[in-house]
């Protein structure tokens, strides 16, 4: 059998490849600047949700009604129009109260940076609902809600509340909490 290189050369090449693979797979640690920048993104995303509370204020949530009706005709998900027409629109005040409260909760979690990953998760769910309901509506740019989903997912991936937020304090408190299961669950949301 003929080989193109000697045993020591092959061993050196294998060792080099292993070193490269180790370097390429090294965990990425976010620097301070990146964390501060992402905290700013979190603050403004929270403000986005907060601002949108004011055109559908309680007690009648008037501004919301038009969009729910539009969702019933524009959604691309089979069966969703039926749910909107026969459940959501028939109990509109309940839907309005739930939507408004959920958006307020998301806004506060992201603005205060408290359980910011929970805020990002709820933001993703709300944005997905908007994408399903409104992305195919006439006059809407389908990427608008898609980008909101992606933005929320990005905030879910990184602990953005650890800077300019209460999660910085909460993460220290949770690290010393006594119940391990509760601690693990809560730390995942920070």
């Amino acid at each position, binding site marked *: 059998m003929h080989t193109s290189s000697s045993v020591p050369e092959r061993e050196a090449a294998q060792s080099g490849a292993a070193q490269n693979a180790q370097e390429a797979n090294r965990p990425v640690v976010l620097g301070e600047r990146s964390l501060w920048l992402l905290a700013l993104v979190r603050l403004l995303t929270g403000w986005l949700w*907060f601002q949108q509370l*004011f055109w559908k204020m309680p007690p009648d949530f008037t501004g919301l009604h038009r969009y729910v009706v539009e969702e019933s005709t524009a959604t691309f998900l089979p069966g969703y129009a039926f749910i909107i027409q026969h459940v959501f629109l028939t109990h509109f005040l309940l839907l309005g109260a739930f939507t408004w409260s959920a958006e307020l909760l998301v806004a506060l979690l992201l*603005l*205060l940076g408290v359980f910011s990953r929970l805020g990002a998760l709820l933001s993703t769910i709300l944005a997905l609902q908007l994408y399903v309901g409104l992305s195919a509506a006439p006059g809407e740019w389908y990427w608008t809600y898609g980008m909101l989903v992606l933005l929320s997912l990005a905030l879910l991936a990184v602990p953005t509340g650890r800077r*300019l*937020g*209460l999660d*910085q304090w909460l993460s220290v408190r949770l690290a010393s909490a006594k119940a391990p299961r509760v601690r693990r669950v809560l730390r995942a949301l920070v």
Partner: protein
Amino acid sequence: MRTILQGGLAGLLAALITSLFWFVDYGPGNSLHTVARWLMLDSADAGKLVGFLLWLALGVLFGLLFGLVLRLWHPTLGGTLFFGLVTGAVNWLLVVFVAGTLWPHGHLDFGGFLFSSVPLLIYGLVLGSLMFHMQTRRLVAQ
């Protein structure tokens, strides 16, 4: 003195960051008229600029006061963040609630109350976070 000046700098930075809240709207920046209206300084021509400068000035002023208290009392991270929130709440209570709403108008509308209280609370939180960062960096450097 250094802590007080650090408070002023943290207040300026916190006000700059949170000024984005007043800028992002259909104007852009129409909400800055609301800030100018707190001290009855609003006008069609210069209202936005006055609102922006007033927001920064209030940020620096309350930052200096924050630094003054922190010079006498050295809180932990939780204490600094909590006291930052309290500073934002006091800013809202004195400037917006009393001088901007109750005194000239005599009534409180829920929407206006909610809209103005949140940016000020977040200003306070950001102030506390920045101040803690500045102080711990100084300690590490020492």
